[in-house]
Every structure is written in C-alpha cells, then in structure tokens.
C-alpha cells in the first residue's frame, strides 16, 4: 500500500498539476488529478488561495480557471531543497 502523502507533498502535487496543464486548469479536473476527496481538496484549495500560491481567473465566457502565482512557482522550484532541509535537521 502506498504511504499517505504529507501536507507539503499534496501541495506540491496540486501545484505541479496546474503547471503541467500550461498553468491553467479548471477546478473539476484539478480535483480529479489530485487524488483527494472533495472535502480534502476544498481545504487544500482554500489554503492555496489564502497563501497566494494560486489565483482564480474567470474568462469572457464566465468559466473559472486556476493558475499559479509567482509564489506558487517558487514553491515548486524550492520543494526539493525544502525536503532536504527538513531531512537534514530531522524536523
């Protein structure tokens, strides 16, 4: 059985999905690709918006898309280093 993902990994996975979809994805496919329950996804999504990792964009037809902010890109860029730091100092 695969081990449960921790919070940092789930955030990384969600941000990576958005980036891999040309930095623009609708909420429903994002929920599907993230492999989370609707409730967990809603909690993570709220956190990502609050921490300004992602932002919502509404197009001319009124459809909602999610894109990464600079902070979101920075998280992706630094993720491996962050894991290295946590491992090094056993935090």
């Amino acid at each position: 059985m695969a081990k449960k993902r921790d919070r940092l990994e789930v955030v990384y996975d969600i941000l990576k999905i958005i980036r891999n979809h040309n930095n623009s994805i609708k909420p429903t496919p994002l929920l599907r690709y993230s492999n989370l329950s609707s409730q967990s996804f809603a909690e993570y999504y709220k956190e990502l918006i609050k921490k300004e990792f992602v932002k919502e964009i509404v197009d001319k037809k009124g459809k909602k898309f999610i894109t990464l902010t600079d902070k979101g890109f920075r998280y992706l860029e630094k993720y491996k280093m962050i894991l290295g730091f946590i491992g090094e100092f056993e935090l």
Partner: protein
Amino acid sequence: MKPFIMPGPCDIGVELIYSLVLVILCLLVYFKTKEIYELTSHKGIKYFRAAFMFFTIAYLFRFLAHIFMFYQINFGIHPRIMGLVGLLPFAFASSMAILSLAYSTLWKKLEFKKFNELYLLYFLAILITLTVFITRSALIFLATQALLFIIAIIMSYKNFKEKKKKSHFASLYTTYGLLFLFWIFNLAVFARIRYFHDTKPIFYFISALIFGFIAYKVIKTTKTK
C-alpha cells in the same frame, strides 16, 4: 554572600566578541530559513527558527550584561542585584530556545490540535525563569536546561535510528549533543560558576565552531541549485 568580582577589560573583550559572533551566527540561521518557512508554514521549521531567534535574544542579553558590567552602568543598584535582574530575560530567552529546539524534533509525536503550543512553551519558560529567580539557584537553571537538551538529543537520536542512513559524525544528535555541552558551559559561565574560568576561551571557541557548523549546514541546504 560571595564577594562580587568585577571582570577585567580582557575578560570583557572576549565576552563581547564571543556574544557578537554567536548573535551573528544565530541571526544567519533565522533569516536563511525565513523563505522556506513562509512557503511551507512547517511546524518543525517554525520551532527550529524560534530556537535560534531565542538564542539570539539570550546572547544579546548576555552582551548587554557585559557592557553594563564593563562601564559599571548599574542605575544605582548593587551589581549583584543588577546581575540577578539581568539573569531574568537571559533565563527566559535561553529556556525558550531550548524548549523550541526540543519541540522542533518532538512536534510530530506531540502535536496539540486544540491550542497553540507556543503558549505552552512560554508558560514553561516563565515557570523555569520564576523558579530560578525565587530559588536564586544556578544549579536548578542548569538542571532544567540540561533536561530539555537531553530530550532534544534523544528525539534526534531516535529520528537518526529510524533513517539508518547517515554517519554518526554528521548526524543532528551529535551536533545537538555538542551544542548541549557547550550551552551548559555557557550558562555556567554566565551564572559565575568559577570552576570553568581558566578554560573559558577554548570553550568559547569550540562553542562558536558548533554554532558555525549549524549555520553552515543551514546555508548549504537552503542554497537553490
């Protein structure tokens, strides 16, 4: 009551340089980890940073205490009483530093969902400080700090065992073990336990090297490739 002995200019010079070096190293650790904490809000990183912030405050008070002593700034109060008053913020900051360091290794096993653990750490640090103030016992202070450090070392040793990877030399529990030895020595000097007086500069040098080693590890691991 033991007679109060005023330290000489050379002693003060060593103390000032030592305190300043340690303040710079601790601030380096604190600011180098700022971005990764802001990105992750990771509890372990939060308490690790808090530990070094409180180490900074503790060394700043130590620095100020020596400045006051050297220039004989005592606001008309007897130097011994002045020393006791100066001990309070130092005891609080150093208790918070060790509590935070211990909690940074313990938080996964002891996570409190209902309240902010920081308040618990503040409460414990205030309790230690008041006990030291009421009993005026440097030994109680050393014993409580030693106990907290031993908890941090045991927890980092358990984490090391679970990983089964790194060498003992580079492991965190070895670093914390050394940090513990020299921190206790540092407290003993501050509490004016005179047994250590002659070997002070060597201990200071090794103590600065340990903090330097931690700062180096932080800089190395937070460098983006």
